[in-house]
């Protein structure tokens, strides 16, 4: 090609290339700038100069009718393309994107974009160049010869490009370009021709170095047309700018650009002189903020070590490897843990880009807006409550949307306890509050998918793969069910089954079960298939059942308290799980065996009192244990042979979450009173905190009544107590309420009348309703 077209071959996202491009453009002063990128973006390129446009940002293109077919072109401040864009836009020079339109790749069904971006300069050519230069690490070699290179004064700004072009030309002599590449190059040649026809005289082309030799060639127009003839028809495409992050630039897969060290590159790009002192000072500041003793002397030593290392390794300048080695040896005391912090915060970095308000909306954002419209849910910053009846179509859809958004980290709606005071599973109550930052979260969530549903599925599967604990996963299953993400369920369930099979820790299993059971119940309400879920839940319950007694043995006070919470939750969950395979009976057997395992020689030999007491209470509440028997056990524990601390624990477990028991059965209160008055003074002081904790959790009314009864006098004469009063029921007055009760329970009126005559099941003893387990005890 003639002298009027200058090809600037770059490495995408290379700070050295960016600097060279800036210098070259400054010297060339082109009257048209052509950049390798999707031409669809041309209408919105002007936004690059907007005040609110801060890289890293990305161009996001997607097929207009299917937002799921999308591609990203990320740009950081140190990307040569970005430098070229800014150069052209700032000076009002015409700017053209000359790559193959994204619409073609969408038509093929591929995601195009991001992958192509990588393929534009495959690892291979650099590796082969590095090999020719006698280096085994291609990345490092490229850094040394191109990225870390700073042009000497008076050097021709175009010289490096000529050298790279020459090297690439040699490499490409034996072909090596795919059909795709050749098509793209043909298209680019066409665009360059068009630019020349438009009357531009000094044209600068910024493209991947790999393409330079192909763009230098001038085959006939017909030849290029023939190559392009094979392309599928373009689909209509929409494109916009989205904020990007350094972290995402560093990801190798998905929409990342595979840059290992965006933070470091950013620093290189920003610093004019020696990058080391500035960067190491920042590293020192970061470590200091995390309480590592790092002084200025450390920084000085690290700079010296990094330079000396570069010398030893024969590199022109200390690169990232040397710098990190120096940070590790000097500042982190050889520890990789502290180094990981530096790596995460400085080498990758947290930079988040922003785009101007008037940039077109992200597809995910648009999908959300559409859903908000159809579901008549307006995003408003002032909080308001929303009650949903899941039996209604719209409300169910609203609930799904809110759950999905929560999964994506957009906490627009937060579930609250219902105002309508309904505990039914058909109702949900939310507090809605839209915050400005959600826009950013949605842009971030765009990596998971382009519609709310797909993004939520993608995120759920991603989270499941990364999950390490069972409870996390069962929580996720629950979320998937309420958010109706049937697509994500198989993947999540697979991970769950694997993890559940491997986990042997009863506490983990116990923590996981309740969410799973809740999920099952929701599944019932929403009509999702849940057989697999049921199997896993049943298996988990059985494994907990088997593992529980040994796991409860020999626990200390803190361990017992934690286990008590699990015990309550598992008990509740197994109650809900129901089923007719006798699980509840087997569980009762487990509780019995738990209650029996008294310590015989020291606390390590048995189950702590807290858990035994709890087990007895749970059995009693379920009507599987006689109150008389419970009383007998209380008496046994409280007898002088037992240790008072163990007894106090037993009482705590027995009474927590509802003390009405003491009012209904005065004998229990009597036993307790007798024991308490008999405790020696020295031991009493030790027991006081435990007892106080136990009684403080009882309901205020119960506490009052217990107090007044104890104050009233001797308690051992059980017959005079209110239990006897309760026996004198006025049958006529009670009978009047029966039809209403029958109606509530859905029984036929006749049955209610009949059962009124007979003794109700478990007559003669009060059934104490189960109350919410007091977690805070």
């Amino acid at each position, binding site marked *: 090609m003639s002298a009027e077209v200058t090809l600037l071959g770059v490495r995408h996202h290379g700070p050295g290339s960016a600097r060279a491009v800036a210098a070259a453009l400054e010297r060339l002063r082109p009257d048209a700038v052509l950049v390798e990128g999707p031409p669809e973006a041309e209408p919105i390129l002007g936004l690059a100069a907007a005040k609110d446009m801060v890289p890293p940002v990305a161009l996001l293109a997607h097929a207009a009718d299917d937002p799921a077919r999308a591609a990203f072109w990320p740009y950081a401040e140190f990307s040569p393309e970005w430098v070229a864009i800014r150069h052209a836009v700032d000076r009002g020079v015409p700017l053209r994107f000359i790559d193959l339109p994204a619409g073609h790749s969408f038509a093929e069904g591929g995601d195009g974009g991001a992958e192509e971006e990588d393929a534009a300069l495959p690892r291979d050519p650099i590796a082969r160049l590095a090999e020719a230069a006698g280096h085994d690490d291609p990345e490092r070699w490229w850094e040394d010869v191109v990225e870390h290179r700073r042009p000497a004064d008076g050097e021709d700004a175009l010289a490096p490009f000529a050298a790279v072009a020459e090297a690439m030309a040699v490499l490409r002599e034996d072909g090596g370009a795919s059909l795709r590449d050749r098509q793209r190059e043909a298209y680019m040649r066409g665009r360059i021709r068009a630019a020349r026809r438009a009357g531009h005289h000094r044209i600068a082309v910024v493209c991947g170095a790999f393409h330079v030799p192909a763009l230098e060639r001038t085959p006939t127009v017909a030849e290029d047309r023939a190559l392009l003839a094979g392309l599928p028809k373009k689909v209509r495409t929409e494109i916009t700018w989205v904020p990007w992050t350094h972290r995402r630039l560093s990801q190798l897969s998905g929409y990342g650009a595979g840059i290992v060290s965006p933070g470091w590159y950013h620093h290189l790009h920003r610093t004019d002189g020696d990058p080391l002192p500035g960067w190491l000072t920042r590293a020192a500041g970061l470590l200091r903020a995390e309480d590592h*003793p790092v*002084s200025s*002397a*450390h920084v000085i*030593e690290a700079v*010296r*070590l990094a330079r*000396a*290392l570069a*010398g*030893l*390794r*024969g590199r022109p300048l200390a690169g990232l*490897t040397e710098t990190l*080695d*120096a940070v*590790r*040896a*000097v500042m*982190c*005391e*050889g*520890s*990789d843990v502290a180094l990981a912090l530096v790596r995460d915060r400085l080498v990758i970095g947290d930079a988040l880009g922003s785009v101007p308000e008037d940039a077109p909306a992200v597809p995910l954002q648009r999908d959300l807006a559409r859903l908000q419209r159809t579901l008549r849910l307006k995003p408003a910053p002032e909080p308001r409550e929303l009650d949903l009846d899941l039996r209604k179509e719209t409300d169910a859809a609203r609930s799904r949307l809110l759950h999905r958004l929560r999964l994506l980290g957009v906490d627009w709606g937060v579930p609250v306890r219902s105002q309508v005071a309904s505990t039914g599973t058909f109702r949900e109550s939310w507090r809605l509050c839209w915050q400005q930052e959600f826009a950013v979260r949605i842009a971030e969530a765009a990596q998971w998918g382009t519609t709310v549903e797909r993004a939520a599925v993608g995120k759920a599967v991603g989270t499941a793969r990364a999950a390490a604990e069972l409870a996390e996963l069962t929580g996720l299953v629950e979320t998937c069910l309420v958010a109706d993400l049937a697509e994500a369920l198989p993947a999540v369930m697979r991970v769950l089954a694997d993890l559940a099979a491997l986990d042997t820790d009863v506490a983990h299993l116990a923590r996981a079960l309740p969410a799973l059971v809740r999920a099952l119940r929701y599944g019932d309400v929403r009509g999702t298939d849940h057989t697999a879920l049921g199997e896993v839940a049943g298996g988990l319950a059985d494994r907990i059942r088997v593992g529980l007694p040994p796991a409860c043995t020999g626990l200390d006070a803190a361990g017992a308290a934690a286990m008590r919470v699990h015990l309550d939750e598992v008990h509740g969950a197994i109650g809900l799980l129901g089923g007719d395979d006798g699980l509840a009976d087997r569980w009762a057997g487990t509780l019995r065996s738990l209650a029996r395992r008294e310590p015989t020689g020291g606390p390590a030999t048995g189950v702590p009192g807290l858990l035994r007491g709890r087990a007895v209470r749970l059995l009693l509440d379920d009507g599987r244990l006689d109150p008389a028997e419970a009383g007998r056990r209380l008496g046994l524990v409280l007898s002088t042979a037992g240790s008072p601390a163990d007894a106090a624990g037993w009482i705590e477990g027995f009474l927590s979450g509802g003390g009405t028991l003491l009012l209904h059965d005065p004998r229990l209160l009597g036993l307790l009173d007798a024991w308490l008055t008999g405790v020696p003074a020295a031991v009493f002081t030790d027991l006081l905190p435990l007892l106080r904790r136990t009684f403080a959790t009882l309901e205020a009314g119960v506490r009052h009544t217990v107090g007044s009864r104890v104050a009233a006098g001797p308690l051992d004469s059980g017959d005079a107590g209110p239990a006897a009063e309760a026996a004198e029921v006025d049958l006529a007055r009670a009978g009047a309420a029966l039809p209403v009760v029958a109606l509530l329970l859905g029984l036929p009126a006749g049955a209610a009348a009949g059962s009124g005559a007979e003794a109700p099941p478990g007559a003669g003893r009060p059934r104490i309703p189960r109350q919410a387990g007091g977690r805070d005890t």
Partner: protein
Amino acid sequence: MTDLVTDVLRQHAEDAFAAELAALAARDDRPRPERWRLSPWAVATYLLGGELDDGTVITPKYIGPRRVVEVAVTTLATDRALLLLGVPGTAKTWVSEHLAAAISGDSTLLVQGTAGTPEEAVRYGWNYARLLTDGPSREALVPSPLMRAMADGRIARVEELTRIPADVQDSLITILSEKTLPIPELGTETQAVRGFNVIATANDRDRGVNELSSALRRRFNTVVLPLPGSLEEEVDIVTRRVEQLGRSLQLPELPGGAQEIRRVVTVFRELRAGLTADGRTKVKTPSGTLSTAEAISVVTNGMALAAHFGDGVLRAGDVAAGVIGAVVRDPAADQQVWREYVEGVVRERDGWQDFYRAARENAR
């Protein structure tokens, strides 16, 4: 180096590898820091191995990440001291000896850190006979290895730094920061000349013995020596060291070594990681460190057994007892771990029947 036959049980590094050091010095044309026998590049090559352009093969002394050695060598060329950290048996002492041998040609300026290391071992002592007859003078002074290293511009080594009592450790601070050792009794001082530096080693496992003060810590660049990364690497290390040790212990070359070394290293790695090599089965971890150094001594021991009492071939039975000795440190808990490992993993493994039988026979 083989022609240098001496009766010494273990030669110093600079003697054992004198030929390699000489070849490196002859070929080395890179800039050397003052009083260094070799350039930093040549020191790194000496430790990591390689081939010179005249065909001399330099055997690797340290098998592991290149980065570790490069940082260590570079540190010694700056004015910070070098602290080698690692669990027991990760070749800390070995690396420090070879570094000193390559840089100063002398690995003997050594202070062994113990709970009873006195201040004299770090600074200087007195020849009391002379002190009484002539009074305090330079002649009556007995310099410590560190003091000699300072005067001559060489590398001094401090082994097991964290075992040295804190007050003795603190006397290192002046030496490392001011590079001088005052002698108040004579009103003079010894100033370090260029080329002086200190390599200290310390053990990760019992850090708490005498934790370094942050003032002292600041004078050191720290390099952590990792456990060997892969099975092949560790087998390589064990094979090389066993060969060298066998030579100096005058054990005959035995067939069957390669297989048993691989087996010992596999057992050690699996128990250390708590996971079998194929990643399928979890195993319990015993209380011992099961370092590479222990694997080396287990194999050497097995070779001695096979040579003197066996049939001249290294067999499973020769190493099994050693392996059990290394694994079972705590008679109650480790015994259980070992038995589970033997029954659960060794028994099922193809080609390990002989080892399984030997392990059963040796079980206590």
